[in-house]
């Protein structure tokens, strides 16, 4: 495993569901502060970390955006000491029974998602997949204690500890998108000795899984000339169609589509070819499903790019990612920034960009 693994595991050990990102933000802030010149927090809670460029002022600015929020659950009621819940972000209820969770009540409680016996369910659901409405979190505590500690609206995080798999792979919940937070961290580390022309704003955005709240607001405050979203994409694996997936551990993806400025795509693909960094083209015919969708339309509009890290079993608590691909994403961004001329934005022209 690589140097980033301990930090990534730490990122997976703290909560930070969409809308309540404070615990993970604190951890990222501690990791990024020594790597940048200034750190601040946006009005919606995104972390802004500025590493100043070395060119003359006014310097052009770019954003590296990785969302730090996690999918999870939220309490909707308590019945006989058992907690009913709904989802935060998209969760397939079929993966839930048997999952360990942390209920963020008046104190953090360990619990397990459980299903009643079929006999206690509506007849239409017997022998059928689970309906989230009828699942519970069982904390093992007695009903009176649960009633005192848990209330409607409490967030519930997945709690399975990450596990290292063979072939430099890591499995765990919330690798979407803490894997990309790790990649941005690698980029900032690699930039330490580098004299780059541009100001680099590493941004850990909030609420990507629900409202794109971070992506829609941070670029307004920063006003970058360029914005890059780093997010996970679908890795090839059991149950997933070959046509919409990319091999795990065999390289990153470069997004191409309406959320991507073709000239930036071209600059990235040429760079990747030059430095022999493996990648696949990821064609995104509509919504890229990333922060780029939000960032692109901030203020008068921003040229955007999407970098993808292939990940299996997305939005389950056993997402699998390759550490090598995380390294590659961080390295490619650092190489891009190192070589980025101050007048890059003036060079990009729509009619010059051909795939």
């Amino acid at each position, binding site marked *: 495993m690589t140097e980033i693994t301990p930090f990534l595991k730490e990122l997976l050990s703290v909560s930070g569901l969409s809308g309540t990102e404070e615990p993970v933000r604190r951890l990222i802030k501690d990791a990024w502060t020594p790597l940048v010149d200034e750190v601040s927090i946006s009005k919606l809670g995104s972390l802004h970390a500025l590493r100043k460029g070395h060119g003359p002022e006014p310097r052009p600015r770019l954003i590296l955006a990785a969302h730090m929020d996690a999918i999870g659950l939220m309490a909707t009621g308590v019945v006989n000491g058992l907690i009913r819940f709904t989802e935060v972000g998209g969760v*397939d209820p*079929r993966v839930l029974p048997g999952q360990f969770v942390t209920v963020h009540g008046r104190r953090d409680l360990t619990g397990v998602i459980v299903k009643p016996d079929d006999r206690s369910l509506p007849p239409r659901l017997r022998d059928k997949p689970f309906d989230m409405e009828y699942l519970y979190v069982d904390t*093992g505590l*007695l009903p009176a204690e649960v009633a005192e500690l848990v209330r409607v609206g409490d967030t519930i995080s997945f709690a399975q500890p990450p596990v290292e798999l*063979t072939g430099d792979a890591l499995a765990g919940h919330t690798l979407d998108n803490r894997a990309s937070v790790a990649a941005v961290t690698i980029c900032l580390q690699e930039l330490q000795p580098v004299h780059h022309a541009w100001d680099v704003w590493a941004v850990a955005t909030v609420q990507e899984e629900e409202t794109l709240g971070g992506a829609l607001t941070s670029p307004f405050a920063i006003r970058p000339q360029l914005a890059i979203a780093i997010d996970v994409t679908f890795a090839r694996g059991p149950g997933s169609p070959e046509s919409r997936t990319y091999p795990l551990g065999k390289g990153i993806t470069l997004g191409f589509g309406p959320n991507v400025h073709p000239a930036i795509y071209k600059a990235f693909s040429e760079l990747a070819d030059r430095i022999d960094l493996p990648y696949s083209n990821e064609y995104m015919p509509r919504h890229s499903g990333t922060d780029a969708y939000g960032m692109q339309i901030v203020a008068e509009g921003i040229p955007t790019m999407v970098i993808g890290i292939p990940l299996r079993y997305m939005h389950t608590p*056993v997402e699998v990612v390759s550490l090598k691909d995380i390294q590659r994403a961080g390295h490619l961004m650092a190489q891009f920034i190192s070589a980025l001329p101050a007048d890059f934005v003036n060079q990009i022209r729509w009619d010059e960009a051909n795939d």
Partner: protein
Amino acid sequence: MTERTKLPIPLPQIGAEQLALLERLSNAVAVSGDEGEVRAIVLEQVKPLADEVTVDALGNVLVTKHAAAPNALRVMLAAHMDEVGFMLTRDDENGLYQFGLVGGMDERVLVGKPILVGKSHIPGVIGAKPIHLQERGEREQTIPVEQLRIDIGPGGSGKVKVGDRATFATRFQQIGPSLVGKALDDRLGVAMLLEILRHPIPQLELLLAFTVQEEIGLRGARVAGYALDPQIAIAVDSTPARDLPNYDGTENQSYNTRLGAGPAIYVADSGTLSDPRLIRHLAQIGDALSIPYQFRQPGGGGTDAGAIHTRRAGVPSVSISVPGRYAHTPVLFARLDDWQNSLSLLHAALQRLTPDILAQER
């Protein structure tokens, strides 16, 4: 405790040592047919205490603790070592494996779980198609086990092999009043038998069977019951507490057992009609010593008693189980109180057991 109910031997108490052993037992991987890991713990525990220890042809551990005097009542206690799980059945390469189910498990609980594979406990996961790539209506379908894969990572080759067993990676923990772990069905029973052996009852010839293959048809108990040739048998197991509320607020009338209501005494299950004399004995002891107990609702399911009671000319049998929620899923919840009360009721009942009980007509 009144003089009338005072027992000659103090009842064994569950403390830190017993919980530490339960943790080891719960975390061990012993899928039916491959019980070696639990068998090793059992052998390590029983050897210093037992008079005779054998491992039979199927892998059962058979233990005898002699009575103080000859011709004592021969009482068999059975707890199964095996647990439900998986076997890797086909190598799809690059760390992906097809697998089959071992024992009665609900296909619906498999997907999205971390697991452990093989004797080296290599970590793996059972993944699922991302919600984003699903077609409309897919969520309403259970993913059949044939479409699931165990994924140990792309560097997989060589670390595990087809034929290896696997189970859920759940680690044991205590949460408030609850015991939480995988395979507590029936490691709770295994641990209880070990505790009985530490506090033997001198007037009984104690025959302890740590059985194999219970989850795939009570196969270990069948031959253990024959070999040990007991006069009375008690299966010690874990039984489902299906006591969650009904969806529509109506009374849950098919709860099987209730968590926190004490050990479950079996009257009738799919394999055994318990001996009424033994049921009466257990209930009387519970009443006399104020040990809470409950009667398991008659119905399906069963224990090793189902195989034992028809060995040879027949063996009067009964079962006692610790209630547990969500059995045969990645996690079982039991209550420490229920476990202690199960151990107390069993030990007290054994202390008061005499050949007279068999002199009564069934």
